[in-house]
């Protein structure tokens, strides 16, 4: 009983959190809280098998699948706040409140009688008793489940499979393309510069510095720069200026400090972006 009164508020709060958090990853983590608390409640309700299955299947497999898809879908996954149907959100919340109040009032007026308890049914072990029922009375449903699972697996494969419309470019084609680009547009033939060379950090979000101190934009990934999570070039240029000034003996830290701060800000922003 103690477990219930501790876990019930936690579960309700976490479930409400799913409604209000903006980022889908946070919603998934809150759902994990609800599911693990449910598993503990199953254990308290004399269902040790379901306790294990809840943790392994729900928290372990289904929620991880959710997180996988979230990571694949990526930063776009934030919720839009625009209402497509006017008043829909208000109506939904009002309807939900009505449903909740109705259910809770109705259930609290119910008298269920004394609890029989599962001590007798579980006397030979919960898993053995479940297996007895599952493979006798529910054996047809159990067999049908296998068909369902196979259909789901095939369906997922069909949906996730992408037909390749153009032949895949191999190493020879890409090399030829590179030489063609060089002859037509004058693009550099060799590999791109690696990030962080001669800069203060060797992280992938730090552009390499050219001999004249300017950052090389080619050296950071296109994805990072389009997300805006690259340590900004002015910050680095300012760092160089600061070093130069200190060599010259002129104390000028303020602008450099500020630039480093903005650099860190962009980094924090990038973490938030990835969280979505």
């Amino acid at each position: 009983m103690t477990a219930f009164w501790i876990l019930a508020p936690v579960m309700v709060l976490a479930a409400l959190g799913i409604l209000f958090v903006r980022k889908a990853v946070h919603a998934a983590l809150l759902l994990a809280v609800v599911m693990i608390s449910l598993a503990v409640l199953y254990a308290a309700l004399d269902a040790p098998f379901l306790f294990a299955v809840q943790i392994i299947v729900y928290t372990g497999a289904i929620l991880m699948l959710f997180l996988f898809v979230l990571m694949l879908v990526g930063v776009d996954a934030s919720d839009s706040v625009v209402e497509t149907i006017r008043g829909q959100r208000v109506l939904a919340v009002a309807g939900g409140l009505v449903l909740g109040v109705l259910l809770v009032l109705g259930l609290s007026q119910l008298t269920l009688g004394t609890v029989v308890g599962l001590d007798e049914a579980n006397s030979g072990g919960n898993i053995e008793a479940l297996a007895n029922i599952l493979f006798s009375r529910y054996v047809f449903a159990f067999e049908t489940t296998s068909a369902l699972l196979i259909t789901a697996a095939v369906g997922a494969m069909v949906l996730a499979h992408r037909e390749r419309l153009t032949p895949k470019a191999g190493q020879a084609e890409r090399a030829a393309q590179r030489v063609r680009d060089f002859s037509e547009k004058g693009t550099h033939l060799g590999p791109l510069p690696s990030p962080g060379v001669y800069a203060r950090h060797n992280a992938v979000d730090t552009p390499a510095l050219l001999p004249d101190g300017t950052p090389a934009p080619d050296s950071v990934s296109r994805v990072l720069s389009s997300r805006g999570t690259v340590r900004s070039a002015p910050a680095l240029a300012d760092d160089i200026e600061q070093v130069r000034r200190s060599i010259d003996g002129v104390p000028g830290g303020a602008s450099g400090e500020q630039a480093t701060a903005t650099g860190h800000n962009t980094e924090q922003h990038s973490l938030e972006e990835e969280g979505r």
Partner: protein
Amino acid sequence: MDTTPYVVLSAILFTIGTVGVLTRRNAIVVFMCVELMLNACNLALVAFARQHGNLDGQIAAFFVMVVAAAEVVVGLAIIMTIFRTRRSASVDDASLLKY
């Protein structure tokens, strides 16, 4: 102990899940709310299994879990397919079937 608190908690979770399905716009979060509703039903099933002293409720909860797993696999594959063509996981963007 009494079964009623468990069933009331299950009803509250189910309601929260319903409101989530109706209000959230991100398809994946909508899916999570459906999972929350299924979980709430499972809690009621397990609580009633203990109330009545037989294991049929637990078997039903087990089947709900199996069906939920299959549903999540297919649903997330559909979301991935829609995301691949539309670059968006919002439920509002996939409205072409209306017309």
